[in-house]
Each structure stands twice: as C-alpha cells, then as structure tokens.
C-alpha cells in the first residue's frame, strides 16, 4: 500500500533520528519515491553559532522547505538545535533589505537608489576621506559571521588598496583573549585538538561558559559521554551563575565574579603539592615565564604559586568555594585519562582574559593533559567564522592573512608579493583595535567606516558613548546587512546582501575546521553577495583615486560569476598563496575537496590527498599533523612549530589573581554580568524575526538571586532599574537561584533602548587582547513598578 506524503515525511523523520543512535525501526523507505520530501538537498553549515554543525537544506520548487543534520559530520554527528533548525525562515523573510538605501545626512529619511549610484557614493566618500584626511581616516569593521572570502577581500582592499590597517571585526569582542592565550601559551593560535576529544575524555572542566544554551550541540555530546559513563566521567562547572550547563555537573564551583584566576592558580597549587604533574612532559616540552622575555625555573613558579593555597583561594573567591572542592577539582582534572577544558566569554571577556586563558592552559601543560586522545584545552568560539575568516583570514588590525603579524616587515612583504603589489604598500603600523576605532570615530579621526554584517551600535560595551560618534555627521557609515539593525539606523548608506545558502563561501569553526556552504537558493531580488559588492566598489575606488594598485587588488577576480566562480577565485588565492607554509596551511582544502567532504577539513592540510582524509585531528603530533613531521627539529613525538614561540616550547605562565576593572561599592553594590539565551543570536536582527524564537523569549529580563530580591522587595515580573555609572535599563525581574548573591545577570540580545544592556556595561578592556570586560561591572538595582505588559521590539 502506498504511503501518503505526510506519512512518508514522518517515516523519514523517524529513520533519520533512529540512524543517529543505531536503532533499527520496523520499516524502511527503500525503493520509495523521495520527491515528497524535497527536490534536492544542499549541504552546508549552520549559521548561528561557532560549533560548525553540518546540515542539508531541503529545496523544493526553488525554496528552502526542510533541514536535516548530517550524521557523517564529525562536528555535530547529525544533531542540530532548534535555533539552527529554524534559520531557514530568514531566507525570503518579508523584512529583508532588497534595495540600496542612502541619505546624505543622518537626520534625513533613507531613499532607495540603484546599485550603481550606491557603489559610486561609497567609493567617492572613502576616496574623499583618503584624499583629505589620509589613509587612516577610513576603516572596515567586520564580523565573525562573514564568509572567509568576504573578510579576506575587504582586508585586501583596505590594506593593499587604501593603505590602512584599520581592519577590525566583532571577534575582538568575543575571542581576542583566546587568541592571546593560545599564542602566549602554545606559540600558535587555535586549539590543538577538537570535538573528537570529547568522545574520549574522562573529565570536563567547563569554566565561564553556559554551553547548554550557547553551544547546545556540543553540550549534547558532552552529556552523552557522561551518560554513557556516569561514574567514570566527571564534569566540573565553574561559574558565578548556576546555568542549564550546571545541571549535568558533578561539581559546580560558584565564585565571586573576577576571582577566577585565583581558583585556577589554586588548582595548580594542588597539582604541585600532591605531585600530580607530569614531570617528563614538563621537562621535555615546557618552560616557565614571568614575561615574554623573562624565563624562570620550576622553583620560582612553585614559590609564586605558594600564595594560592586552596584555603587562601577559598577566602578570595567566596561563594560555595571551599579548599576541599578546589582540591577535588584539581585531582579529577589531573588524574583523569583525558581532560578537556572548555570556556567561552566568561573567561575571554575579562580585564585579564588572556591571563585567565593562560592559567587554564597551565593546568593542561602541568598535567600533560594535552596532545593525547581525550585531552585538550578547547576554547569554544561564539561565531561561525571568527576562527576561519577573522583569525586566519587577516580580519584584525594587527594580523595579516595566514597568522602573519602586521608589524613584521618580512611577513608584510610575503603578502605584498602574493598580491602582486609594490613592496612597502602595506603600512607597518597596526590599525585601531575595536575600542580604539570607535573612540577615534568619537574624536572625529575616522571619517568613513564600512560596517559589515554586525551591529556595533548595540554590541559595543558602554554603547551610548560610541553611538555619539556614530551619529556624527562628519562620519560616513556604510553598512552591509540583510535586515535593518540599530547600526543601520545610524548609517548613511545601507547595502542589502545575500544570506547564507544564497551565496557560496567557507566558514572555519572552533576546531580548525573549514567547511563550505554553496549557494542553494537565489537571494531576494536586489540583494547581492558581498564579494561582488567589494569588487565593484574597489574598481570605482581605483578610478576615484587614480590608483592602479587598488585595481590590481581585484584584477584576478574581474569578470567572475558572483555566486560561485568569484568566491572560488578568492578562496584559491587565499588558500594557495597566503596559507602556504603557514601553520594554518589550507592548500589541500580546495573548493573541490571541500565540496566532497561531509564535514570539511581541519588544518594544517597542505595537500589535497591529506585534506581528503579530513586533515589534522591533533596539531603538533608527529604522524597526525604533517607539519609536525615537516617542521620537526628532533625525534620527539610532539613538535611545537607555532610562529610565536621560537624556543618551540609550551609556556607555563606566572599570572597573579587580578580583579575586574570595576568592583561593587556602596553606590553601586551589585555585580552585573551578561550573556546569551538559547533562542537568540547576538543582537536578534535575525532570530528576533523568527516568531517561534521571539515568542519563546520576547524580551530581556534581569535575573536576581532570591535572597537579594527579598531584601529589596522585588517580586517576579516587577520592573527593575539596572543602573551603572554609564547607563540605565528597566527590565522585568526573574527571581532565580542562578546568579550568586550580590550579582545580577541580563541577556544582551534585546534591541529595545530601555532593555539594551550594553548601555550599562563597561568598556574597560584587556591590555593584551583589547577585548572588553563585558562580563563584569558594578551596578545598582531598584524596583520601579509592579509588572507591566511588554512587547518585543525589532528595528524595522
């Protein structure tokens, strides 16, 4: 008997789920027509976090109608979260931008213009600024959501064409401290291992991360490991806030915000005191460092760490921290067959974020919990292409493509040679980092900025201060985006772009893995891929400034068809010329190879043959990493060839406890921290337009510990003012045994002015990574009224 179409789809759904857990169902669809499901499936990556889940997008009659996980993918093993499942609703959304919009002054209303007019205006404004105020009066501010091809081409035009290193991106706000940590501890950016270690780990150390909400598919994998081995696998969760992640933990260490460095040093203390360290590993592969130039010995480190006895740390850290649970955590960490640490913004968005990263790495180096199966120090990335596009592709002010430092002449010359532009064309001085860039806008030093695929008007800390600069009439702002945002509200020129699966390009996720997403559907009429926009803009810039070198920057791409051939040509140039011989060697990860692989390629992957195996699962391990063999200097099994450590060692750092830039006082007695919620992505310009996600969490609220709420007479739903030295929000209260007493927590996605928490956060930043301390500032709270009816708000 034939199956109805819906019955066919239901059986497909059941078989898909059953296949993931190896369950046999009493039916199959062998020999049945597949057309009821979708006309075709196009394989790509999810767009809404840094995990890199692989999905098949189902297309019927030219429209996206279905989505399924890819079981063969080593990133997600076929699972996808609800946020990911619904992202296809952004394709064809009625509020998509489809016409270039322009206004000469920011008080005017936008008017629709043609693409020719728009590109002429953008070129003239940038050219005028360069002519009148010099190259450093223009800037590009990009995104960890932009494709690698986009970031690479933008930065090529800015550096090689316009001769400025004012190239930045929002990853500065989320993972710059992780970059600093990897470079200073391991000598090379990005993790040594990856998700595969989760399946073999016996201890998980999750600190400063609510991965259950921010990275649900990786969290599922951790939980599966725990469930399959409930007694053998231990999970330690370290966070001032009890979150959904805490519910699977064997131990939750809840501490006073900003005292994390003391906990990490105290764990090192226990590791030394109880001789839990790996002496052979330390002596073979590591050194101790007080600063970049000052090396010290083990005894000096031991003396330094003696200030951090668990008893001392418990006193510093408060909360539920005791000397005993620090000792227990250290033992689990050191003695397990394999320990994986995972962290996100709770560690990175700190005044001493790099130090906090160093101290996590210290624990792994001391105990040898690295380089072996089931052991890794794994920073989880928030955005889908912060690693691939921005960290590797040259998307920050101090780095060129292929992990090259701007300040090194030899490395600049390599890039100039690859681009075929005159030696010395790329300026030697790094540009403005993010906070300096927006301060320069405030000061009127930057006259034209291109903001791509991000919304700094909402995502910068102390946002009101920087919005003042963005409102200046002498600052010309171009934005490229798919929806109106808080930043398009401050722009002069808004350019509508193609979305994911409407164009082709590569994302590089947390674990050094590059994955392609090809075009599957047409963008709405009028929206164009960014690579086309940049190429056409650059050609006009070359004419405006009468500068053939600018044209030279896009010459290899002229005439290429925009949806596949153009991004392929850009990727070819980047991967073949700019990553050759670098630690992120991607020469084997050609479009041909990436299209064949279910889950992309992990670098280094110098040849196609090696890339077709999936690439390097463990960096620095001979026999697994081809560069560990080709760069080997001795017979040891591990070779640390990263560009930042000429001594080829792992560095154990002496980093003292240091608190946040602002601590509570009599006037502002509470800590304020911020974070993500499972349903929403960043500033909600996308997820806020998906009704199912918006209805689940339509507005931000302030989480208050029940004891604090009782003291202040605040009841659930009451409207509460959250005020800092910088700004004020008024939000509904959620009374919740989540934040530690004395701390409140607010989700940062809400666009409504009174609930936009970055008007309240502080813009202090790490002196090394320049990443702001979003996670901690001082505030006061008070009830302003009982519950009020609220509505969601999205810029339209």
């Amino acid at each position, binding site marked *: 008997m034939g199956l109805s179409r*819906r019955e066919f*789809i*239901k059986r*497909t*759904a*059941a*078989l*898909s*789920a*059953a296949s*993931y*857990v190896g*369950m*046999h*169902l009493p039916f199959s669809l062998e020999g049945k027509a597949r057309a009821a*499901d*979708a006309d075709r499936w196009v394989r790509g990556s999810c767009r809404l976090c840094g995990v890199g889940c692989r999905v098949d997008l*189902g297309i*019927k009659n030219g*429209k996206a*109608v*279905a*989505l*399924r*996980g890819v*079981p063969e993918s080593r990133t997600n093993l*076929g*699972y*996808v*979260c*609800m946020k990911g*499942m*619904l992202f296809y609703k952004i394709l064809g959304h009625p509020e998509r931008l489809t016409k270039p919009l322009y206004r000469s002054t920011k008080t005017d209303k936008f008017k629709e213009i043609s693409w020719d007019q728009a590109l002429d205006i953008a070129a003239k404004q940038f050219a005028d600024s360069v002519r009148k105020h010099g190259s450093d009066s223009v800037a590009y501010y990009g995104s960890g959501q932009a494709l690698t091809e986009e970031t690479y081409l933008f930065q090529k035009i800015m550096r090689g064409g316009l001769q400025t290193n004012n190239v930045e991106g929002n990853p500065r706000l989320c993972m710059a401290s992780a970059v600093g940590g990897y470079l200073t501890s391991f000598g090379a950016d990005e993790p040594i291992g990856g998700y595969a270690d989760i399946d073999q780990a016996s201890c998980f150390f999750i600190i400063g991360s609510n991965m259950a909400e921010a990275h*649900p598919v990786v*969290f*599922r994998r951790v*939980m*599966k490991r725990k*469930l*399959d081995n409930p007694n053998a696998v231990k999970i330690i969760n370290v966070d001032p806030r009890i979150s959904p992640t805490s519910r*699977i933990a064997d131990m939750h260490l809840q501490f006073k915000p900003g005292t994390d460095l003391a906990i990490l040093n105290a764990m090192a203390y226990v590791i030394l005191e109880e001789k839990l360290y790996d002496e052979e590993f330390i002596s073979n592969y590591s050194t101790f460092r007080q600063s970049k130039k000052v090396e010290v010995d083990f005894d000096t480190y031991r003396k330094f760490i003696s200030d951090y006895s668990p008893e001392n740390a418990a006193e510093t850290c408060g909360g539920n921290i005791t000397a005993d649970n620090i000792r227990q955590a250290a033992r689990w960490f050191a003695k397990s067959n394999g320990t994986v640490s995972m962290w996100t913004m709770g560690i990175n968005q700190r005044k001493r974020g790099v130090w906090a990263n160093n101290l996590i790495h210290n624990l792994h180096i001391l105990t040898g919990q690295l380089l072996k199966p089931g052991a890794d120090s794994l920073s989880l990335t928030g955005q889908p292409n912060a690693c691939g596009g921005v960290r590797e592709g040259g998307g920050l002010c101090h780095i060129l493509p292929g992990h090259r430092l701007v300040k090194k002449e030899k490395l600049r010359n390599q890039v100039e040679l690859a681009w075929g532009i005159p030696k010395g064309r790329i300026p030697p001085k790094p540009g403005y980092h993010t906070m300096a860039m927006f301060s320069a806008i405030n000061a009127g030093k930057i006259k034209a900025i291109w903001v791509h695929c991000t919304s700094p008007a909402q995502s910068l800390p102390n946002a009101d201060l920087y919005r003042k600069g963005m409102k200046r009439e002498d600052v010309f702002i171009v934005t490229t985006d798919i929806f109106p945002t808080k930043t398009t509200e401050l722009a002069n020129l808004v350019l509508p772009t193609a979305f994911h699966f409407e164009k082709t390009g590569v994302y590089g996720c947390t674990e050094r893995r590059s994955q392609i997403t090809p075009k599957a559907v047409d963008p709405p009429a009028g929206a164009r891929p960014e690579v086309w926009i940049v190429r056409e803009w650059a050609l006009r810039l070359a004419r405006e400034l009468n500068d053939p070198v600018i044209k030279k920057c896009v010459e290899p791409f002229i005439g290429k068809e925009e949806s596949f051939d153009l991004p392929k040509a850009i990727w070819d140039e980047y991967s073949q010329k700019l990553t050759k011989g670098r630690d992120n060697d991607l020469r084997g990860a050609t479009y041909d190879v990436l299209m064949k692989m279910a889950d992309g390629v992990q670098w280094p992957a110098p040849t196609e043959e090696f890339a077709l195996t999936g690439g390097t699962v463990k960096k620095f391990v001979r026999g697994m990493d081809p560069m560990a063999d080709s760069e080997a200097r001795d017979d040891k099994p591990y070779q640390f060839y990263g560009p930042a450590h000429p001594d080829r060692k792992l560095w154990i750092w002496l980093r003292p406890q240091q608190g946040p830039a602002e601590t509570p006082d009599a006037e502002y007695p509470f800590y304020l921290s911020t974070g993500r919620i499972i349903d929403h992505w960043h500033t909600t310009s996308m997820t*806020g*337009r998906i*009704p*199912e*996600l*918006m*209805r*689940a969490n*339509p507005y931000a609220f302030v989480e208050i510990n029940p004891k604090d709420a009782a003291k202040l007479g605040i009841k659930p739903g009451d409207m509460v003012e959250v005020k800092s030295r910088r700004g004020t929000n008024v939000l509904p209260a959620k009374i919740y045994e989540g934040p530690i007493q004395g701390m409140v927590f607010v989700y940062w996605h809400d666009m*409504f002015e*009174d609930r936009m928490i970055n008007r309240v956060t502080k813009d202090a930043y790490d002196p090394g990574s320049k990443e702001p301390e979003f996670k901690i500032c001082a505030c006061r709270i008070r009830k302003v009224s009982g519950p009020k009816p*609220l*509505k*969601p*708000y*999205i*810029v*339209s």
Partner: protein
Amino acid sequence: MPIGGFVISIDPSMEKPILKNLERFGDIEIHGTDDSGNIVAVIDTATSDEMEKLVKTLSRMDGILTVGLTYFNAEDEIEKIEAGEFVPKISFGKKNN
C-alpha cells in the same frame, strides 16, 4: 504542519514513567527506545511555534536530559504563510515597548 524527527535522551531508569508521560501528548509518536536512554520520536504539530513550545516543555520534564532534533520539514507551513492562510502571531514596530 511541520514534522520533526527527534532523539530524546533520558535517564534510563526513568524510561517507563517518561514514556507514560509522553503518551499524554497527542502530537508525539514514539518509534523506539533503547537501553542507553534514547527515545526516537516524531513530533507533528500545527505550527513550528507549537513545536518549539512542546520541545521546551519536554526539555523541562523530570528525567529528560535533552531533546535533540535531527530532521525538520515545514513545507506545508511555508506554503500556508505564502498563501496568506497562516500569519505568524508576532508583529514588530517602533512604537512597541
């Protein structure tokens, strides 16, 4: 009417009461279970909004650890939205607060 394929991970010792609880939801079809605490289920709801709410409800139930989605098809709902037969219930505007 969207259809989703799910692996629901549970505490294996609570399989019986959880399955009994799941039976109360008319929109859920159970296709199989195993000793490791996996339940293969298909959820068929009137709208994807309802599916989202149901998944949240399940996620909060005692003994259920995660509700993992593996397949999602919303062709019927998309057709209805495009034909104007179904309007998502949420609206936006600058005057909202």
